[in-house]
C-alpha cells in the first residue's frame, strides 16, 4: 500500500470537466436548446433618440406582414405588468419598454412576434413611430443643473439619491493635516461584453396563471422577486430556469431581467411561447454597462505621506433608469472606501444621477474600478506633490499585518492578510529593481518609460444588505433589516451510491463543476470523476435563495464552502451508519479511496457505494438514532454579514483579498501608443482551490481591465447619440493586445469561509486600470490622466505646437467639435455658369429641388419656403429611405439663404443647417459657396459613425454639384439625375 494518495484534490489544477463539451462544440447554450413547438420569435424596435416623447406608433403595416403574429407596444406591456421596483424612495417608474417616452438610444419601443427572426426584423421596418425629440443630458454633473432636461419628473430633477456619511472626525483631521491633496476623476463607461448575448424563452400557462422562463440570467436571484412582481404573480408562479451553459457574463447577464418581464408579457399576450436572442447591436446599445462616475477625492496628509482623512464626493451616473439593483455599484464598495489603508476619518457624499444613456448594472469589478482609480491616482498624486516615492506612501498607509481582522472606518471587517509582506514579495519577485534600471536606461536614452503601482483590497461575497446603506437609518428601520448572503448546496446519494451535487451558482464558463467535484471528493474520500455536478437552475425545484447566482466572486468562498459543509454533514451521517456495521465509533470511521474503513484496521472496510446506497435499500438496518443519508441541502450565511448600523457602517462584503500590482510601460514618442513592458499582479485570495482556474480568473480579469484602461468606452455624443454600436468602434482587446501578466500569490486563508478561500475574479478589474494609468502618468510626467488611454489624447503631451500650413485648405471649417461628438461640418464652393438670380429662383422651385436633392422621389411644397420630400440617401451599398423636410430662412435674394433640414428614416435621423451664398463673378458666372453643420443620430450614428463625415460630404457635395449642373443648364432630366444618384430607373 505504498501508493500514497494525494492529500486532497482541492488545491490541484485538475482538467476541467466542462472543457470536453465546450471545446468540441457540444456546449448547451440557450440558443442550442430548441424551443417549444409554436414558438414565436421576438425582435425589438429600439429608440434612435436619446430622449423623445413617443407621440404615435403605427403598427398596422407590420401586423399585416404574413408570418407576424403580434406587434406589442409599451401600452400593451403596461396592461400585463407593473413597473419594475426602483431602488430609491421616489415616485418613479421603470418599465422594460418605453411607455410614451424614450430616454436612451436603444430603449425598446415595440416588440414584433413572428414565425422567425428574419420576418420579425422585416416587420420592424414597417412600424412607424412619431417621435418628438426632447433635449438630452449625458453628463452627470450637467444633469444636476437646474436647467437640464429632466428624465423622470417624479424625482423633481435628475438626482435620484443624495446621501452624506461621516466616519471618525474628518473635519478635525483635515484641519490638522499638514497637506490637503485632491484629485478629480471622470471614470468612463465600459462593459465586459460576453461572447454570448442575452437569451430568453418565455411561456405562460393561463390555466394556472404561471410563467415558465428559460433565460441565461446570472443572478442575484433577489431579482426573481422583482421579475415576479412585475409580471403580477407570486414567486411560486414564476419558474425561472437557466440553461446548462452560459457563454460568459461578468455581471452583465444580471440585466437580462427586464427582458424576462418583456418576453413573459409577450408570451401572455400572444398565448404562445416567445423566444428572443439578443444580437450584438442590441447588446452594445441596450444591455447594461458599468456606471460612469465623477469623483472628487481629497486627502488630509502628513509631511511623510501618511493619510489621515479622506473626503469622497461621488456623482454616480446610472443612465436612464434606476434599474434594480442600482445604485448598488456605488454602495458595493461602501465598507472599502479606504482601500488597503488604515485611515480612520472619512467623509462621503454619494449622489446618484440619471442621464440619457443606457441603464447600468453589474459588471466585473462592480464599483471597484471607479473607487480605486480615484484612490490609487490620489496616492500617486500625494507622492508627486510631496516628492515621495509612491511605494513609501503606500507602505506608510497599509493596514498593519497585526491588525486583522481589521474593521475599516466605514464598517468593513477585513478578514485576513499581511499587506506589507505581500507587497514586499511582489516587489521582489516581480523584479522591481530590474524595472527601475530599465527605466533609468530608457530615460537616459530619451525614451518614455514609466512604472506604476496599485494596492487594492478586493471584496467578495456581497452582503445582501449593503444596498440599504442608500437609505437613511430611519428608512432602514421602517423597511426592516436586510443582511447576509445565503449560499446553498445539495448533495444527493442515489440507489447505487453515486454522488451528485447541485448548487445555485449559475456558472458562465468558470469551472464550478470541476471545483465542486474536487471539494466533495475530498470530503467523501472519492475521486472527482465519481461526482456529478449539476449547475443549471430551476427555481421551481432547486434549493436557492436571494443571494444565489454568480456575482461578487462568491463561488470559491461561499458556494464551494457550502458544498463542503453539505458533504461533511452527509459524511458524518454516513459515518454513524458505517460505525454500526464496522463495529467502531463513528469518529474512527475513515473515508478514503472509495472505501469506508476503520481507522485502525484497513481490512475492516466497506465500499463507499454500498454504504451510500444503504439508506435506499435497507433503511431498516440504519441505527435507530441516525437519520437516513440520502440527500443533504445546506444553507450557509456568514454571521459577519450584518445589517448596516445606525451610524451607516456596513460590512459590505465577507472576504477581502489583497492585490499589489506593478506595471512598467513604454510610450512611443511618435504615436503615443502604450506598450506594456511588464505587468506583475500579486494576489492574496486566501486558500487557492484550483491554481489553474485562479490563473484564468486573474488573466481574464487583467485582459478586461486592460481593455477598460486602453480601448473601451461606451461613448455618447453630447446629444445622447450612441457612438460605439459595433465592435469596430467599441474596441475590446484581442490576444494581440494583451501581454501575459506575471501572476504571484501569497496565501492567508480567510477565517470566515469554510474552505479559507476568498474571491479572486474581480480584483484585476479594480487594480489594473489605475496601475496602467499610474505607469503612463509616470512615463509622461503627468498630473492628470483619464481613461481610456487614447494615443491621440496622450500625444497632446508629446507633440509640441503644431506647424501651420503654408496655405490653408479651403474646406477647413471653424473649430471642430470635441472628439467623439457626432457633429459634422464642412464647406465648399462651386462655380456655375449662370446669373445669381437664376440660381436663386431654382432654390425656391420644387421642381429644381427634386432634381438636385440627392435621391429625391417627390417634393411637396408646403409654403414658399418649406418643402417636404421622400429621399433615398446613401453611399456605396449603404442606402436608406428618409422623409425629409427642408425650409429656407434668412432670405437675402439673390445673395444668401439658410437651408435648414431634417431627415428621418429606418437608418436614423439627421438635422442640419447650411448657409449658402451666391456671388456673381461675371455676367454668367456665379460662385455658390456653402457651409454646413449637421448632427446625425440613430442607427447610422451608432454603427457607421466612422463613415458619416465622409458620407455627409458626398451627399451634400452631390446636392451642390447637382445645383451647379442644373443652373448651368446642362441637359439632364430629372430621371437621369435619379439614375446617376441612385442607379435606379
Amino acid at each position, binding site marked *: 500500500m505504498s501508493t500514497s494518495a494525494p492529500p486532497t484534490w482541492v488545491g490541484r489544477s485538475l482538467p476541467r470537466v466542462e472543457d470536453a463539451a465546450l471545446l468540441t462544440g457540444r456546449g448547451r447554450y440557450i440558443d442550442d436548446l430548441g424551443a417549444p413547438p409554436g414558438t414565436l420569435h421576438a425582435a425589438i424596435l429600439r429608440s434612435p433618440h436619446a430622449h423623445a416623447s413617443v407621440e404615435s406608433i403605427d403598427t398596422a403595416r407590420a401586423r399585416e406582414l404574413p408570418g407576424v403574429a403580434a406587434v406589442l407596444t409599451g401600452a400593451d406591456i403596461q396592461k400585463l405588468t407593473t413597473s419594475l421596483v426602483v431602488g430609491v424612495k421616489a415616485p418613479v417608474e421603470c418599465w422594460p419598454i418605453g411607455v410614451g417616452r424614450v430616454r436612451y438610444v436603444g430603449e425598446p419601443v415595440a416588440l414584433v412576434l413572428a414565425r422567425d427572426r428574419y420576418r420579425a426584423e422585416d416587420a420592424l421596418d414597417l412600424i412607424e413611430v412619431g417621435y418628438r425629440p426632447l433635449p438630452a443630458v449625458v453628463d452627470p454633473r450637467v444633469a444636476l443643473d437646474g436647467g437640464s432636461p429632466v428624465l423622470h419628473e417624479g424625482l423633481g430633477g435628475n438626482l435620484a439619491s443624495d446621501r452624506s456619511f461621516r466616519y471618525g472626525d474628518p473635519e478635525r483631521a483635515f484641519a490638522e493635516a499638514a497637506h490637503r491633496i485632491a484629485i478629480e476623476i471622470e471614470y468612463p463607461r465600459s462593459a465586459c461584453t460576453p461572447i454570448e448575448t442575452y437569451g430568453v424563452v418565455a411561456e405562460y400557462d393561463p390555466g394556472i396563471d404561471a410563467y415558465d422562463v428559460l433565460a441565461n440570467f446570472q443572478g442575484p436571484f433577489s431579482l426573481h422577486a422583482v421579475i415576479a412582481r412585475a409580471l403580477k404573480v407570486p414567486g411560486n408562479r414564476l419558474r425561472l430556469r437557466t440553461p446548462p451553459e452560459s457563454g460568459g457574463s461578468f455581471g452583465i447577464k444580471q440585466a437580462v431581467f427586464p427582458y424576462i418581464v418583456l418576453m413573459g408579457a409577450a408570451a401572455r399576450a400572444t398565448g404562445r411561447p416567445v423566444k428572443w436572442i439578443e444580437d450584438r447591436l442590441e447588446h452594445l446599445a441596450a444591455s447594461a454597462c458599468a456606471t460612469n462616475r465623477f469623483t472628487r477625492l481629497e486627502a488630509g496628509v502628513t509631511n511623510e505621506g501618511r493619510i489621515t482623512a479622506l473626503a469622497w464626493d461621488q456623482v454616480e451616473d446610472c443612465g436612464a433608469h434606476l434599474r434594480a439593483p442600482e445604485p448598488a455599484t456605488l454602495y458595493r464598495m461602501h465598507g472599502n472606501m479606504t482601500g488597503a489603508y488604515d485611515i480612520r476619518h472619512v467623509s462621503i457624499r454619494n449622489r446618484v444621477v440619471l442621464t440619457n444613456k443606457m441603464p447600468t448594472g453589474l459588471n466585473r469589478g462592480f464599483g471597484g474600478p471607479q473607487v480605486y482609480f480615484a484612490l490609487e491616482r490620489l496616492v500617486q498624486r500625494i507622492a508627486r506633490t510631496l516628492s515621495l516615492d509612491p511605494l513609501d506612501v503606500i507602505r506608510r498607509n497599509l493596514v498593519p499585518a497585526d491588525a486583522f481582522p481589521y474593521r475599516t472606518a466605514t464598517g468593513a471587517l477585513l478578514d485576513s492578510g499581511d499587506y506589507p509582506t505581500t507587497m514586499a514579495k511582489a516587489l521582489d519577485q516581480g523584479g522591481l529593481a530590474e524595472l527601475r534600471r530599465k527605466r533609468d536606461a530608457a530615460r537616459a536614452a530619451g525614451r518614455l518609460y514609466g512604472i506604476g503601482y496599485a494596492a487594492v483590497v478586493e471584496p467578495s461575497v456581497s452582503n445582501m444588505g449593503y444596498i440599504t446603506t442608500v437609505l437613511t437609518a430611519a428608512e432602514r428601520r421602517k423597511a426592516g433589516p436586510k443582511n447576509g448572503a445565503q449560499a446553498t448546496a445539495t448533495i444527493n446519494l442515489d440507489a447505487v451510491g453515486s454522488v451528485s451535487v447541485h448548487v445555485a451558482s449559475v456558472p458562465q464558463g468558470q469551472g464550478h463543476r470541476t471545483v465542486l467535484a474536487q471539494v466533495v471528493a475530498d470530503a467523501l474520500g472519492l475521486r472527482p470523476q465519481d461526482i456529478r455536478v449539476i449547475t443549471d437552475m430551476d427555481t421551481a425545484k432547486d434549493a436557492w435563495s436571494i443571494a444565489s447566482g454568480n456575482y461578487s466572486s462568491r463561488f470559491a468562498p461561499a458556494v464551494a464552502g457550502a458544498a463542503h459543509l453539505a458533504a461533511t454533514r452527509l459524511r458524518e451521517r454516513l459515518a454513524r451508519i458505517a460505525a454500526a456495521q464496522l463495529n467502531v465509533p463513528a469518529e474512527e470511521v475513515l473515508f478514503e479511496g472509495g472505501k469506508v474503513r476503520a481507522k485502525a484496521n484497513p481490512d475492516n472496510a466497506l465500499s463507499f457505494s454500498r454504504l451510500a446506497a444503504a439508506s435506499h435499500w435497507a433503511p431498516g438496518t440504519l441505527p435507530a438514532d441516525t437519520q437516513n443519508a440520502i440527500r443533504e441541502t445546506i444553507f450557509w450565511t456568514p454571521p459577519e454579514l450584518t445589517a448596516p448600523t445606525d451610524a451607516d457602517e456596513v460590512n459590505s462584503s465577507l472576504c477581502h483579498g489583497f492585490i499589489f500590482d506593478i506595471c512598467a510601460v513604454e510610450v512611443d514618442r511618435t504615436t503615443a501608443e502604450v506598450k506594456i513592458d511588464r505587468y506583475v499582479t500579486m494576489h492574496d485570495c486566501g486558500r487557492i482551490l484550483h491554481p489553474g482556474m485562479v490563473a484564468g480568473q486573474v488573466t481574464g480579469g487583467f485582459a478586461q481591465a486592460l481593455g477598460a484602461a486602453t480601448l473601451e468606452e461606451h461613448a455618447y455624443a453630447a446629444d445622447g447619440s450612441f457612438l460605439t454600436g459595433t465592435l469596430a468602434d467599441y474596441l475590446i482587446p484581442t490576444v494581440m493586445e494583451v501581454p501575459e501578466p506575471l501572476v504571484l500569490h501569497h496565501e492567508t486563508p480567510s477565517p470566515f469561509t469554510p474552505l479559507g478561500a476568498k474571491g479572486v475574479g474581480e480584483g484585476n478589474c479594480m487594480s489594473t486600470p489605475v496601475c496602467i494609468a499610474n505607469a503612463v502618468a509616470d512615463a509622461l510626467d503627468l498630473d492628470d490622466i483619464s481613461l481610456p488611454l487614447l494615443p491621440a489624447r496622450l500625444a497632446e503631451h508629446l507633440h509640441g505646437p503644431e506647424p501651420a500650413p503654408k496655405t490653408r485648405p479651403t474646406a477647413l471649417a471653424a473649430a471642430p467639435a470635441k472628439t467623439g461628438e457626432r457633429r459634422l461640418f464642412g464647406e465648399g464652393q462651386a462655380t456655375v455658369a449662370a446669373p445669381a438670380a437664376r440660381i436663386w429662383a431654382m432654390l425656391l422651385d420644387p421642381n429644381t429641388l427634386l432634381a438636385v436633392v440627392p435621391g429625391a422621389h417627390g417634393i411637396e411644397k408646403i409654403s414658399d419656403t418649406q418643402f417636404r420630400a421622400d429621399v433615398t440617401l446613401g453611399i456605396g451599398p449603404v442606402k436608406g429611405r428618409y422623409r425629409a423636410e427642408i425650409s429656407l430662412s434668412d432670405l437675402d435674394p439673390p445673395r444668401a439663404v439658410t437651408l435648414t433640414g431634417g431627415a428621418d428614416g429606418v437608418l436614423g435621423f439627421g438635422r442640419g443647417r447650411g448657409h449658402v451664398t451666391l456671388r456673381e463673378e461675371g455676367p454668367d458666372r456665379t460662385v455658390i459657396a456653402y457651409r454646413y453643420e449637421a448632427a446625425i443620430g440613430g442607427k*447610422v450614428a451608432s454603427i457607421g459613425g466612422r463613415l458619416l463625415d465622409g458620407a455627409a460630404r*458626398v451627399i451634400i457635395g452631390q446636392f451642390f454639384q447637382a445645383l451647379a449642373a442644373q443652373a448651368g443648364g446642362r441637359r439632364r432630366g430629372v430621371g437621369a439625375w435619379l439614375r446617376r444618384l441612385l442607379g435606379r430607373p
Partner: protein
Amino acid sequence: MKPAAFDYVRAEGATEALEVLHAEGANARVLAGGQSLLPMLNMRLARPAVLVDIMAVTEWRRVDDDGSHLRIGAAVRQVEIEQRADLARRQPLLAAALPWVGHAQTRSRGTVCGSVAHADPSAELPLVLVALDGRVHLRSRRRARQVPATGFFTGMMATARADDEIIEAVSLPCAKPGTGYAFREVSRRHGDFAIIACAAVVGERGARLAVGGVADRPVTRDLPAPGSPGLPDALNQFAWDLDARDDLHATARYRREMVRRIGREVIEEAQRCRA
C-alpha cells in the same frame, strides 16, 4: 442582425454575372468575399435586391504576372496573394500592406478587388493601388475599360465604377530596380481600421507618399526626395490638405501629426530599401 430578403445568383461565368449587373444595376451587389458586404446586409445598412456571387467564375480567379505588372482577378482572395512565395520580391509594398488588411480570418475570404470596390478610405489595398499608380479594369456587358487608380476613388465608399460594371481585375506594376517601398499603419488594435496608413515609393525621381485613413479616399502626393530641406514643409502641407477630421479614435491634429512623422519615417525607410 438578420438581412432583408435578397435573391442570390451564383454566376457560372463572367457573362452571366455581367448580365445580372446589366439587368439589375444598382439593385445588385457583387459578392466577392463578403467581408464588408455581409455585415452591412446583416445590419440592414445595405439592401440589395440581388447578390451576384462571382467566386465560381474561373476566368476571374487568375493572377497574372507578365514581368512588369501583376494582374489580380476579381475572385482572387487576399490570402492567395499574401501567400505567393515571390510576392515580397515582385511587389514589396503589397507584401508589406497585406498583413494589415483585416485579420487572417477575413483575408482568407476577402478578395483584393472586393476591397477596391468597397473603397473604404482606410483600406490598405486601395492605398497600395494608388501609391503604385495601379489600374482598375472595369467590365460591363457594353464595354471594358481601364481607370487609373488615382482617379478611381472618388470619395467615401464612392468610385468611378458604373452600376452595371464589375471590377474584373486590378493591375499594379511590379517592383522596379532602384525603387524602394515602405508601408506603415497606425490603428488602435491590430486589424482595426487605420487611423492612418502610409505607403511610400522612393525612386530616382523622388518620393511619393500615399496616405489612407485621413481623407475620404486614399490620396497620393509627390514629395521632395528624402533628406531634402523642402520635405518637412511639403509633408506639413500634405498633412493639412488631407482635411483630417476628429472621430472617436483619433483627433484631426493627431492624424496630421502622424502624416508628418510616420510619413517621413516611411519615406526614409523606402529610401533605405532602394539599396
